[in-house]
């Protein structure tokens, strides 16, 4: 029997999915290069995956929608996908970081996925995440380009659905020697433009921190109880102050010169911009994206002006 493919809409502990003998497929990963322009939409991310699921352009056996503590657009578009007949489970992170609550959510999820069959996957994924951490360090010191680092880190949400294959991709990466000037952090949800990191790099901005993809490699554990405690630190699901404290440390540790805050049209995270600007003491550029594709000219102008501004500092 072929291994079941489980669509996921955001961070769902892949440790648990693989250990239940099924493979995750992050439905967001196909969007930036999709050139899809959905009709009835707020956020293009959720609108596109919903459309593609309903039209069976993305084929999954079932779907796990991360709703509580993360995204209400996903909650609604997830229900629309469910109404089209896809068996769907809604997964909720606790806003207050209560591990007991998250533990019960993870138990319910494991039941939906058919129960744990290969507990060794917890450890195997833990090892891969250690390699992810290493890659993340390398890009901070110019041994890896930010675009390559991003491509790998963003894939940690579903580990490309193939642990052995993903491990090979990581070990095939060639070290680089890049001069890291204008160190910037990219915070917020990931840009919907597929060439954003390359574009930033071509304008002499080195992204040394990708906020959301970093969440994909920093949580783990060897059983449900452990991941329940650990994933409670998933910053996007927690109060803003929790996330800001975490960001402050990361930005300092990575010695960033400036921060780019990417916001998505019709996404509630846009409302956080003024708070982030006030609390993070770095030059900050806010950009907004809507539909997938190349980085638009208007965004390039802002990036270039931001680089010139960092040059002047």
């Amino acid at each position: 029997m072929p291994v079941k493919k489980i669509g996921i809409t955001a961070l769902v502990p892949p440790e648990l999915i693989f250990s239940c003998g099924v493979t995750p497929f992050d439905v967001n990963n196909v969007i930036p290069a999709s050139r899809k322009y959905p009709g009835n939409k707020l956020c293009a991310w959720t609108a596109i995956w919903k459309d593609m699921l309903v039209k069976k352009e993305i084929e999954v056996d079932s779907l796990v929608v991360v709703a509580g503590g993360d995204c209400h657009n996903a909650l609604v578009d997830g229900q629309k996908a469910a109404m089209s007949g896809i068996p769907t489970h809604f997964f909720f992170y606790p806003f207050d970081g209560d591990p007991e609550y998250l533990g019960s959510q993870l138990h319910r999820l494991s039941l939906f996925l058919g129960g744990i069959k290969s507990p060794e996957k917890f450890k195997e994924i833990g090892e891969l995440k250690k390699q992810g951490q290493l890659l993340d360090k390398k890009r901070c010191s110019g041994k890896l380009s930010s675009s390559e680092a991003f491509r790998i880190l963003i894939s940690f949400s579903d580990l490309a659905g193939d642990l052995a294959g993903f491990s090979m991709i990581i070990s095939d990466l060639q070290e680089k020697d890049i001069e890291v000037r204008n160190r910037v952090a990219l915070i917020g949800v990931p840009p919907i433009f597929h060439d954003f990191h390359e574009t930033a790099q071509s304008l002499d901005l080195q992204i040394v921190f990708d906020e959301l993809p970093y969440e994909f490699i920093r949580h783990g554990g060897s059983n449900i109880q452990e991941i329940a405690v650990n994933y409670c630190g998933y910053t996007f699901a927690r109060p803003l102050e929790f996330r800001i404290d975490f960001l402050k440390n990361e930005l300092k540790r990575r010695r960033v010169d400036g921060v780019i805050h990417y916001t998505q049209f019709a996404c509630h995270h846009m409302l956080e911009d003024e708070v982030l600007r006030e609390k993070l003491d770095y030059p900050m550029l806010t950009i907004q994206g809507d539909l997938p594709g190349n980085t638009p000219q208007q965004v390039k102008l802002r990036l270039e002006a931001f680089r010139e501004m960092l040059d002047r500092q």
Partner: protein
Amino acid sequence: MIGLDVGSTAAKMVWIESGGLKFRITSTHNWKELVEGIDGDEIISTGYFRNSVPHRASLTELTAAIYGVRHYFPDAEVIVDIGGQDTKVIDVRNNNFIINDKCSAGTGAFLEFVANYFKIELNELGSMHAMAKRIPDINNTCGVFALSEMISQLVGGYSKEEVIAGMHYAFARRISYMIPQAHKVVLIGGTVKNEGMVAALMDVLNIDVLIPDEPQIINALGALKYYS
């Protein structure tokens, strides 16, 4: 060396000759006339088409604006550059900037619609504003809806001059949301030559704004200054 600013509607060139500032302006599609006989290595370019014209170096119009404005007003705090297709606000104090390039209502294109509607030249809007006795409320922040509101006011009995003044106020309010609190606000860009719009903006912001003699050439000058 020359500074060349090729924007969305006009191309401007600035150079220094016998210690004085010289400039030429033409429409964007005629930009080549400006640089005839000039080696690309002599050009510092800026503006939307900065990378499409020959240049020795290029810089964005945001940085160019800072250098150009500093030449006239070294202690400028905020720069408002009202261009044909977008409006940029630069807070020089903390190196921050905001660009409106999504909505035409706060850009030169909006006033061009108004001038086209009345079949008058863009540069006549200012003098017509001065003749207004009352100023109708035009509240829409969307360019298209503001135009239909303008027509209703005309039908409702306001004169052409008064409605134009109302449109300047609608425009000024739209821009004012982008401008942070400051004492020294400098306006640049071709649209700033419209005294009616400037008067409305000063009234809305409740401050005196500073305007260089030739607001349209500031970015070209800034490009020149940046590299010299």
